[in-house]
């Protein structure tokens, strides 16, 4: 594995009184594409949110480039070079497409330019003056991904980017994610759609009840498919 970019150890998280994560641990090397797989409620989304610092309470250790972030607020974490694309996409209805794209501030040099992002997502350029939430589901997903490419963030946290989208769009998003990996982005992907995840990821962490219960590399998946299906309940 390449140099470790993100390392999570004994991560615990709470929503109000409910204890959601019970000691999650995993790591990602620079340039890797890693997924968190698991059933609904296994704690995948909460893990992403905890890494980003947007849960009410978390303990344990989350280091990014060796810096401990677990006690930092989310804006400080973002400025280290992490960018988050939420499951519900979080497109702002009071902003048009281009304002949505331009919203996240630059945190580091070396992000993609607006014209590169429009090359990747030509639909967004056509509709750049439309209200953000007037786009189709697929376009909104592309906007949510495109929005975090400008900032210079090196680690992208993508929460179920394929959820609720037509197969042809899912395929397009798969191509885009592969292109982003090719550009050197490190990606942590949360997915329910294992078939999609298997086409893009280097490694998979499988989560159950707020823990990581297994790790598989892309090469292991074929021979362990039965085990994996049991984990995911498919």
């Amino acid at each position: 594995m390449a140099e470790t970019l993100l390392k999570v150890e004994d991560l615990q998280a709470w929503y109000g009184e409910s204890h959601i994560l019970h000691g999650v641990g995993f790591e990602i090397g620079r340039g890797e594409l890693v997924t968190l797989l698991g059933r609904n409620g296994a704690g995948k989304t909460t893990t992403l949110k905890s890494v980003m610092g947007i849960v009410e309470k978390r303990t344990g250790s989350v280091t990014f480039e060796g810096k401990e972030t677990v006690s930092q607020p989310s804006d400080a974490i973002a400025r280290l070079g992490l960018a988050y694309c939420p499951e519900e996409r979080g497109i702002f209805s009071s902003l048009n497409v281009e304002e949505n794209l331009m919203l996240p501030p630059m945190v580091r040099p070396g992000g993609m330019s607006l014209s590169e992002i429009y090359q990747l997502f030509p639909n967004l350029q056509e509709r750049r003056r439309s209200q953000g939430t007037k786009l189709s589901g697929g376009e909104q997903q592309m906007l949510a991904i495109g929005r975090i490419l400008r900032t210079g963030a090196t680690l992208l946290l993508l929460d179920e980017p394929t959820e609720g989208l037509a197969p042809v769009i899912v395929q397009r998003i798969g191509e885009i994610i592969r292109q982003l990996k090719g550009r050197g982005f490190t990606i942590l992907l949360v997915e329910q759609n294992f078939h999609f995840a298997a086409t893009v990821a280097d490694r998979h962490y499988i989560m159950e009840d707020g823990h990581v219960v297994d790790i598989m590399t892309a090469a292991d998946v074929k021979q362990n498919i039965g085990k994996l299906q049991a984990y995911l309940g498919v």
Partner: protein
Amino acid sequence: MFELIGIPPQALFGQLLLGLINGAFYAMLSLGLAVIFGMLNVINFTHGAQYMMGAFAAWLLLGILDVPFWASLVLAPILVGLFGVVLERVMLKRIYHLDHLYGFLLTFGLALVIEGLFQWKWGSSGAPYPNPIPGGYNLGFMFMPTYRAFVVVAALVICLATWYGIERTKLGAYLRAATENPTLVRAFGINVPRLITLTYGLGVGLAALAGVLAAPIQQVSALMGTNLVLVVFAVVVIGGMGSIMGSIVTGFGLGLIEGLTKVFYPPASNTVIFVVMALVLLIKPAGLFGQTK
């Protein structure tokens, strides 16, 4: 023609001008209230007291340091805005996660305390502020005092500048986005707590600016903003909570409606705004320009 319906034109236009000027103040004040509500989720009932503080700041700057009106127009809002920043940092930020009622109690209580302190120090009879541009024009059908015309134009400029700042600039985009989803905006690396403080400071500064503009028209007195905040709150509700254009249009519009009511049926002039509010809420609960969530 006007005599046909029994209203002399001087009275009609005089009241319309008065309505327009009141409307200008409603618009400026409701704008600040709307922006603050959008960001802080707090209805700032201290707004009237902060408007009064603006007028007092100008009056004190003139009386003690001999600062002219035009300099106070800039200085007073900055001073009162900074007071707002302190208020937000020390008190308001502690109640954002609570029910609206707590915000109401805190800001309403603060208004009472501030007004009480000013009343204790300077009494409630009020002091005059000299008119910086005396004189006026005879328009044929009415006399137009220069300063009043200036206030209407200044209020329009201030309202449009605020609208531009919020709808067309980067800072405004942060503001709009943070109003919708502060958690996500913060996760993009924007310091949302600081943005909230800044918003409150700007909203309070806007109230103080209105206060400075009001000083030469009204008596500068501790209670000059007390009743105003209720009307302005009604304007925000009619315009639609959090809608910028709604606040501007509704502010001017209601000032005019109030003026017309004074001409045609004076006893209703104090209540007409609240009647309009009740009607609007019956037909469009989110307000004229509001979006249902």
